[in-house]
């Protein structure tokens, strides 16, 4: 049983434990919130209270700059997980009708014979984002901008649903061994190039990263080159531009050949 005096203030163990802890806390708080900020010019510029607020992580204003200019945005599309939901049959049907407009370049089954990108099995959020970017002029193409202008938001969703519904231009499975280009498998850490398969499938398939297997080589080369030269800029946070900036012409060719090669072994599936 506790001795009656254990939890009484006249128990010196209790008294000194509590006093020591309170003093320690007060002293460290004073040092952290008052004394240390006082030797920091930025902190003390607006007085004691402002410096305490800054030390607590809540400055009255985050910046003294007159006004922050809105940065140029790569895209107005916010990728949303809802875009990836599997659509109902009606949407696929409507999309199939609309897609008759696209067959000339993208193929009757969404697999192109004319170096336009394959759309069969493409992730819906990719189709949605690119079409909206064409509408907004964030991605440029004489043909696609004109065609996208006439599409309503629902048309775009329906098209995305239809193409997602088609079987992917997938070929026989590839073993991811040393025979593949290094940039595809492991990237190049010292040039800050992540492996393609970290986002475009195999290791992981990130939201908004397109399905690349079976893409026409000329199309992949053109897009990587456009990202590298900065003529294509609709990648949020410059993700792709930063990846490919230091890639050489040969490396681009190699990577594109890898993704296209898969198509040539068993095209149109």
């Amino acid at each position, binding site marked *: 049983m*506790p*001795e009656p005096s*254990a939890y009484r203030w006249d*128990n010196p*163990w209790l008294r000194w434990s509590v006093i020591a802890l309170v003093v320690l806390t007060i002293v460290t708080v004073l040092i952290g919130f008052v004394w240390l900020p006082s030797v920091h010019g930025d902190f003390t510029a607006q007085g004691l209270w402002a410096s305490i607020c800054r030390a607590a*992580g809540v400055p009255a204003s985050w910046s003294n700059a007159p006004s922050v200019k809105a940065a140029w945005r790569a895209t107005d599309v916010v990728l949303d997980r809802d875009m990836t939901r599997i659509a109902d049959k009606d949407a696929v049907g409507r999309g199939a009708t609309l897609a008759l407009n696209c067959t000339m370049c993208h193929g009757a089954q969404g697999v192109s014979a004319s170096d336009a990108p394959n759309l069969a099995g493409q992730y819906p959020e990719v189709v949605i984002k690119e079409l909206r970017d064409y509408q907004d002029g964030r991605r440029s193409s004489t043909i696609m901008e004109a065609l996208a202008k006439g599409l309503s938001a629902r048309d775009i969703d329906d098209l995305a649903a239809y193409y997602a519904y088609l079987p992917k231009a997938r070929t026989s499975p590839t073993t991811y061994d040393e025979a593949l280009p290094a940039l595809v*498998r492991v990237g190049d850490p010292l040039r800050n190039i992540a492996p393609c398969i*970290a986002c475009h499938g195999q*290791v992981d398939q990130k939201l908004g990263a397109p399905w690349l297997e079976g893409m026409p080589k000329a199309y992949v080369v053109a897009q990587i080159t456009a990202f590298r030269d900065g003529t294509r800029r609709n990648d949020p946070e410059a993700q792709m531009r930063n990846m490919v900036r230091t890639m050489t012409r040969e490396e681009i060719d190699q990577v594109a050949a890898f993704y296209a090669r898969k198509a040539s072994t068993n095209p149109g599936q």
Partner: protein
Amino acid sequence: MFLARKLVLAHFAVALVAFLGAIVLGEWQMLVRSPLHAWVNNPEHYYRSVTAHGTVMAYVLPTLIAMGFGYAVSELSLGRALVGLRWAWAGFWLVIGGTVLAAATIAAGRASVLYTFYPPMLASPVYYLGVVLVVVGSWIWVALMSINLRAWRRDHPGATVPLAMFGTLAGAYLWAWTSVGAAVEVLALILPASLGLTDTINAGLARVFFSWTLHAIVYFWLMPAYIAFYTIVPRAIGGRLYSDTMARVAFALFLVFSMPIGIHHLFADPQVGAGFKFVHAAMTAMVSVPTLLTVFTILASVEIAGRLRGGRGALGWIKALPWDNSMMLGVTFSFVMLGLGGAGGLINMSYQLNETIHNTQWVTGHFHLIFGGAIVIMYFMIAYELWPQLTGCAPLPRRLVNTQLWLWFVGMLVLSMPWHLVGLLGMPRRMAYYDYSDPALHPQAWTVTMSTLGGAVLVVSALLLVFILARALRTSGPSPSFTFSVTAHPGAATPALLNRFALWIVMMIGLTLVNYAFPIAQLASLKEASVPVIPIGSR
């Protein structure tokens, strides 16, 4: 006396099997990123392995050891049958079930988020559920420890709680409070996102909650080792515990100070104010007090052993120590690693010095040295000490045990020292491969080979450990009675507050509120802190 034998044995057996699996994964990770091996083709396999290694080594192994050892201490120190044996088994099966769920999800590639979770990365909800089950199982243990102490107190009014049980309860209460942080993170933030109910997550807040758990969990891991330092080591080497009061002060201080200091893990996180970072750094420094008290008390206890064996003079007692005694060897290795790791820890907790080593291999080296070295080697000693009790086996082969301890010590230093060195040179951690062909990295390549060799020695040591314990199952010997250390001043009065926990728990909770309430409230109210989730392996 020792009715919970099967229960304790089950905890240790599962812990050791899991440990053996995880250590092989660790060595594989070292090998594939060393110059001895080509780059791993699928980096995701590397992170899968890191997640499994960390989840087992950080959650499963120490939880099972702390639980098993706690049940043993409860029976052996209180001298009465464990109350709530059925609940204890239920807790055990929860831990096993949770481990299997988490391991299966990791193996399927649906949880490569590392054991520290790192939102906005999200694993499959099954993984988090598995971890939650492990923690819930351990909460049953916390409750049982408290209930058993209460029952003992009822029968022994006014008596002093045996030191081993006092330490166990300190560890249990510490764990109960510290696991709340990660529990809130998982239940309130991660699971809703992982289940698809929300598509953003307040990553900054989640990290603050995890830091609540992340540092004090180390002291939960450490408690069994410290209990062994105080209550087993002096007896095992023929000495006396220098001061029972000092031991209790150390446990009470750990309870108060190891909890509200986790923001020192977030020094590089911009979402936390610099003032709180300083306060947490200063309080982290306070943890060195119970650590140094322990070092002093145990060294004094060891000195008593040396002098009782006829050692004379300022250093003569060191020569007189029983150096062929496994416990002597174990505690020496543990202290050397604790000293080196602790010195490194002082650098980690300093706001400015931390900048040089933050997120480098130094950190990996630090926690392997402290946990894998100083603490886990004491887990081995606990297993060796309890084994004859648990299995009725013959005394363990001393030479083999000493070899195992030497291998662990040497292996751990060879593994972790190169990490410290390259950490200072800036080598980042959590890398699946390094490009050694680059002239800037080439001169550091040998260090990774070195660590790989150190890891190989550790694997051999772990195999030897399991071999020694498994072979002992086939022997039988006299069942010795288990005793804890005797203090140098038996019968000395224990201050009433060092026989109870309420004050220390109130201080722990109060200090947590002072140190965490504002950062949590501020981040929780900050709308902009929510970021889109990144589910791993969802497609």
